[in-house]
């Protein structure tokens, strides 16, 4: 997901917990929200910082593949909608960095970790947006997958994270709708070339979208602890299944073929059977070998480094202004 393979720390059985830890776990079990000033185990804090930080990084790196098409959007209305969407994503980044700050880590520290390669962002943003149909596909599938994850995270145990998710979810449904709307136009009213463009986008984005939920549960070593802390509510496979079940009829409506010959309704489980993505590819992308990892990181690092003079300039001005105000106060006394 936006937070994939977040390493959780300090899994403990109830009998190993201290009294304080037991009381903390009881609060979570009762569905209480943990607030910044409350006591929390160090592992809980660290895991949350990783997860919220990775989520925040995903929002801002996620601006790049879509921002890529703002200047080329095919109509003024599409341009405006895409601008609004990408602006929302930057805003999501802001809410999430703020939520992380309540855990005692600054935005600058998190960015330094991202730029230094010590923190990750979602694997999905390492795939290129090659055509306008990709913009539709990102909205429909990528934001669709993000919503699936974020809806459950509204119930997460950490108050500031939960509140950020509630705010974000309100905006996300517009993101998915605008993506689907792009594809409806192309698939239902478009030329054969436009339909082919949409199918090609589907072929390229389907499996990377499934990868967003992270490795299969059988390989997800950190899930149990995160779920005990209610940092995670559903498992990767549960969410992936929900996503597929939701998406198949939407694809059918568009007349698009999901690139999976094994995709089939299973009456017994009340959901679709489907092929797993190529996990080797997933781990390669996570390791930095996706099609766009280098470009995405370069773009973010360049933006940060080229902007250093700007940030220093603003800080210098603030210091001067404060000094002038202090001097004026002194003179008045």
């Amino acid at each position, binding site marked *: 997901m936006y937070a994939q393979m977040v390493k959780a720390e300090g899994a403990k059985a109830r009998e190993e917990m201290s009294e304080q830890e037991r009381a903390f776990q009881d609060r979570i079990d009762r569905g209480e929200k943990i607030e910044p000033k409350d006591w929390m185990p160090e592992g809980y804090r660290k895991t949350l910082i990783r997860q919220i930080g990775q989520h925040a990084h995903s929002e801002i790196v996620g601006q790049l593949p879509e921002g890529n098409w703002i200047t*080329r959007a095919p109509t003024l209305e599409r341009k405006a909608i895409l601008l609004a969407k990408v602006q929302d994503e930057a805003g999501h980044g802001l809410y999430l960095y703020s939520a992380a700050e309540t855990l005692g880590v600054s935005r600058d520290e998190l960015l330094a970790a991202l730029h230094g390669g010590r923190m990750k962002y979602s694997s999905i943003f390492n795939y290129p947006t090659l055509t306008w149909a990709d913009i539709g596909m990102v909205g429909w599938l990528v934001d669709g997958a993000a919503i699936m994850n974020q809806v459950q995270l509204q119930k997460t145990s950490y108050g500031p994270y939960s509140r950020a998710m509630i705010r974000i979810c309100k905006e996300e449904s517009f993101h998915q709708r605008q993506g689907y709307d792009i594809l409806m136009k192309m698939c239902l009213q478009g030329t054969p070339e436009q339909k082919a463009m949409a199918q090609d986008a589907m072929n390229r984005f389907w499996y990377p979208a499934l990868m967003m939920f992270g490795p299969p549960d059988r390989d997800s070593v950190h899930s149990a602890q995160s779920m005990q802390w209610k940092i995670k509510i559903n498992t990767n496979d549960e969410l992936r299944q929900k996503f597929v079940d939701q998406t198949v009829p939407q694809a059918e409506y568009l007349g698009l073929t999901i690139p999976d010959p094994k995709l089939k309704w299973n009456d017994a489980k009340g959901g679709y059977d489907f092929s797993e993505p190529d996990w080797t590819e997933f781990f390669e992308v996570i390791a930095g070998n996706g099609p766009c990892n280098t470009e995405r990181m370069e773009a973010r690092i360049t933006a940060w480094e*080229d902007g*250093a003079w700007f*940030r220093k300039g603003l800080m210098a001005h603030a210091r001067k202004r404060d000094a002038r105000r202090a001097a004026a106060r002194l003179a008045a006394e």
Partner: protein
Amino acid sequence: MPSLTDVMTADADLTRAPGIRTIAALGAAPENAFAEWLCRMGDNCLILGHRISEWCGHAPVLEEDIALANTALDLIGQTRLWLDLAGEVEGKGRSADTLAYLRDAAQFRNVLLVERPNGDFGHTLMRQFLFDAWHIEMLRALQSSADPRVAGIAAKAAKEVAYHLERSADLVIRLGDGTEESRARMQTALDRLWPYTGELFMGDAVDQAMAEAGIAPDPASLRAAWDSTVAEVMATATLVRPGGTFQHRGGKQGRHTEALGYILADMQFLQRAYPGAVW
């Protein structure tokens, strides 16, 4: 061959310069001048909106990514209003999209200032400030336009642009009066962009027709207010107003810099590659 100085010197009379379309060339019909003028308003917004949206995801801080996207969004919204009206006034069935996506560079009517490349972030902010300071005066004046449609668009846009100006002026001040480096960058930006500001106030036959019809102010009449805004902001920013008097011109009449062709190549790609497709 006409000599270049005819069109490149500040006192050249553009209405008589060769190769530049005049009202007479447009058939002297007042509605053509009106449509032409509306394209100027719309194209300024469109091209500047395009330029600043190029920053998306690349700004020095997240707050600036958000603010620039917001400004671009306002400008694209205004583009749609101006160009839709331009199409309506022109009466040839062209929509805002047709005008934006299917005209070539020579038919664009934006001032040269807005098509200048982004440069560093300071350059982008300085360009924004110089434009905003003009834009707000223009929109204020247009709120008493004889054409209620123009007055309506101006009233809506003025609210947005007042905020653009507040923001760009504030940042120019903070960066001018910041570090040595930020001051130097802002001064360089001002020096480079200055020769592109004069065009905002140079009238031609189209402007004259608009002023006579009470639709829009004489561009020269906006100069004093702009000068005082700029003087005040530059003084606070510790920046020096450039001394040179030379001013480029031509954008309003469709004579652009090399930059515009690249902007259009990007912007119009899909409409050109898939003619007639709906998106």
